[in-house]
């Protein structure tokens, strides 16, 4: 086995892959061969580093140099300068958006300083397609410990003591869930990993499966041991081809090593895992819907109870946890519940992974201890708001969550605090919005999403959300009335109160929270017919400032609908009834004579 002196880690997460990290890897290898360093340098495609904003990321070890936005054409320089001569390529270093300082070592980056990586411990560190690298990081040791030293009851107790709660949204205590499933008697039980991450703008689970698939496999096996199941299923979105591929490789390797299959580690424990593909239905994140989908049916939820832990897949007791929850398990077993439950807040232990996105400098995947404040996440880790704009709101919990204002920036993040603030933890999407975002339009955006994703089974969700959307649409197109706001609230509350599943029970949250926190914006839309952020097209008005118009006729000639009239060398005029607000006149005018109101 060669011991390489230098390891070059390239991010192979979907974000970076989309930005050509495969090609980059090829180039780097080529140049390394060219200069004869192939015995000294190992190039590894790893899982996501989290710093997606500046992908592709290349990390050179052992000196921890962190290159951002690397293109294949940069490979030559990295190899010839850095690897050969030890000279850091300055121009590829990350530049702090606030201080404009270049930072060479990733540990020096604010982005990483406040993070604590438990679920993401191996992401961006090991080659996910190599089981040996996982094993070298204590991989499968937790499973070994459980199988040889702990009874299923002991293991469940450990998970219960750790205080781990489900990371998929609801925050149900994981140990308790396992215990209930263990106590349900049946000839066959199932362990299901929910990897149907559907929140738009969330990619935590995908990154874990891409970067550290074995941690999920190991945890599912532990769960199987605890509840008495010999069969596991991973329900994964078909839209995640890379994660599926990596998971398949990992499953094959685990089988090859005897870590899946019959008589694991000679203990008589049998366990194996199958993959089931989702097919593009957000509602299948709900566990009963997910189970129906795995059974080849329409992914419609059913009323609980019975809970899957009693009657789930094929009517058998089924334990469903999401990817991030599972990823925490081996660490808890290895390091102990008492280590884990020291992290976090009173009722929310451990860390949480967030997909940070939107109008923020450092878009990416982060993991912080529970109790970290939103401000730390947005300003310290996220690097603040893009282009120096003002923070307006942060949306957590995806379409089920709410939009929080700057008043909540110092709220420590945990399950209860977010709920109290009118949002929720959800699976971990965190979208930051700035002054340019219209909160009514955001609410409308989420409702539109819900509208497409509602399964249609229960009336309040099927029809109620449609009506909510229609009212919001009316408001954003300037036809709203003040009483519409009250109707939104009334209807939202009924939908929450009567819907069949979690999707409908939370779908009005974006509406309610934006009304609660940004009522002024709603009022501006309905009363003044104005969109303060200038986002709602129908409420925009293009007008010609007479004093500045030279009558050059450029706008007149470019208007696609003939809404502009005027004589040459005379001020022109826009007929508002014809204007479609395309903005062409605004772009074309050379004299800044067109104003937007």
């Amino acid at each position, binding site marked *: 086995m060669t011991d390489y002196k230098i390891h070059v880690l390239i991010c192979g*997460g979907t974000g970076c892959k989309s930005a050509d990290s495969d090609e980059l890897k090829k180039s780097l290898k080529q140049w390394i061969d060219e200069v004869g360093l192939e015995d000294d340098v190992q190039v590894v495609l790893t899982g996501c580093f989290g*710093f997606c904003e500046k992908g592709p990321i290349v990390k050179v070890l052992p000196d921890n140099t962190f290159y951002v936005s690397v293109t294949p054409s940069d490979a030559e320089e990295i190899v010839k300068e850095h690897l050969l001569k030890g000279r850091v390529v300055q121009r590829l270093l990350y530049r702090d958006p606030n201080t404009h300082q270049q930072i060479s070592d990733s540990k020096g980056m604010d982005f990483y300083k406040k993070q604590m990586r438990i679920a993401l411990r191996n992401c961006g560190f090991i080659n996910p397609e190599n089981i040996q690298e996982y094993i070298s990081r204590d991989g499968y040791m937790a499973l070994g410990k459980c199988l040889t030293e702990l009874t299923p009851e002991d293991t469940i107790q450990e998970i219960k003591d750790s205080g781990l709660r489900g990371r998929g949204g609801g925050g149900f205590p994981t140990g308790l869930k396992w215990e209930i499933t263990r106590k349900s008697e049946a000839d066959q039980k199932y362990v299901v990993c929910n990897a149907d991450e559907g929140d738009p*703008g969330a*990619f935590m689970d995908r990154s874990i499966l891409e970067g550290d698939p074995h941690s999920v496999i190991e945890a599912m096996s532990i769960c199987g041991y605890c509840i008495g199941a010999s069969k596991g299923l991973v329900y994964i979105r078909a839209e*995640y081809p890379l994660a599926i591929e990596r998971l398949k490789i990992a499953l094959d390797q685990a089988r090859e090593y005897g870590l899946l299959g019959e008589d694991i580690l000679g203990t008589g424990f049998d366990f194996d895992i199958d993959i089931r*593909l989702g097919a*593009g239905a957000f509602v299948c994140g709900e566990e009963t819907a997910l189970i129906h989908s795995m059974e080849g049916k329409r992914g419609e939820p059913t009323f609980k109870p019975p809970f899957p832990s009693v009657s789930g897949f094929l009517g058998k007791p089924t334990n469903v946890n999401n990817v991030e929850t599972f990823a925490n398990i081996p660490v808890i077993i290895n390091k102990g519940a008492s280590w884990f439950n020291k992290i976090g807040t009173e009722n929310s232990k451990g860390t949480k992974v967030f997909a940070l996105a939107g109008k923020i400098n450092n878009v990416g995947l982060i993991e912080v201890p529970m109790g970290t404040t939103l401000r730390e996440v947005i300003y310290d880790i996220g690097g603040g708001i893009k282009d120096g704009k003002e923070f307006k709101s942060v949306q957590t919990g995806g379409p089920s969550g709410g939009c929080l204002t700057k008043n909540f920036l110092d709220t420590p993040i945990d399950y209860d605090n977010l709920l109290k603030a009118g949002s929720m933890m959800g699976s971990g999407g965190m979208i930051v919005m700035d002054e340019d975002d219209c909160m009514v339009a955001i609410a409308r955006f989420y409702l539109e999403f819900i509208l497409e994703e509602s399964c249609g089974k229960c009336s309040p969700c099927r029809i109620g959300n449609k009506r909510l959307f229609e009212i919001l649409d009316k408001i954003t197109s300037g036809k709203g009335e003040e009483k519409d706001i009250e109707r939104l609230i009334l209807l939202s509350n009924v939908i929450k109160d009567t819907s069949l599943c979690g999707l409908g029970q939370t779908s009005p949250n974006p509406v309610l929270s934006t009304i609660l926190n940004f009522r002024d914006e709603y009022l501006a839309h309905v009363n003044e017919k104005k969109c303060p952020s200038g986002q709602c097209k129908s409420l925009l008005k293009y007008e010609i400032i007479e004093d500045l118009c030279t009558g050059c006729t450029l706008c007149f000639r470019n208007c696609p609908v003939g809404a502009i009239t005027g004589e040459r060398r005379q001020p022109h005029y826009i007929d508002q009834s014809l204007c479609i607000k395309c903005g062409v006149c605004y772009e074309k005018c050379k004299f800044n004579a067109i104003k937007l109101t």
Partner: protein
Amino acid sequence: MPKIKLAESTVKIIKDVCARFNNSEGELINVLHTVQHKLGYLPAEVQEVIAKELNTSVAKVYGVVTFYSYFSMIPKGEFPISICMGTACYVRGAEQVLSEFKRQLKVEVGESTSDGKFSLNCLRCVGACGLAPVVMIGEKVFGRVAPTQVKQIIAEYREGCSSEKAKSA
């Protein structure tokens, strides 16, 4: 609905896929995935064969096909264009990019251009939020797309210089 008769070879492909999944009704979604992957789409006649092979009703198959956005009953264009409409892309202007594609291609979402070259679809988060707004053509990802770039991207594919790439992807 006008019926088209499936070629013997196509029927065999479908039957083989079903057999691979033990002709089990519970594997319907896996079967649909695999068949769509092989044939490109799932027209009525294909669903009928699948229903028969899995010993279930064609109504059920259709119910499943229409439930999941991943399944399509119409063929995609030579270059399927997908606009990511995840929240991250939305707040970074995906809607404007989408309307520019609609304007340039003169199609609505879910439609194909009359020459069959392009089809336009929306999809949920592809996970490349750092590159938002994101557009996928075939398997190729275009990041940080501005509406002004749309025309050029389409032109590139029209001229066929990228066709090789998209096909192989």
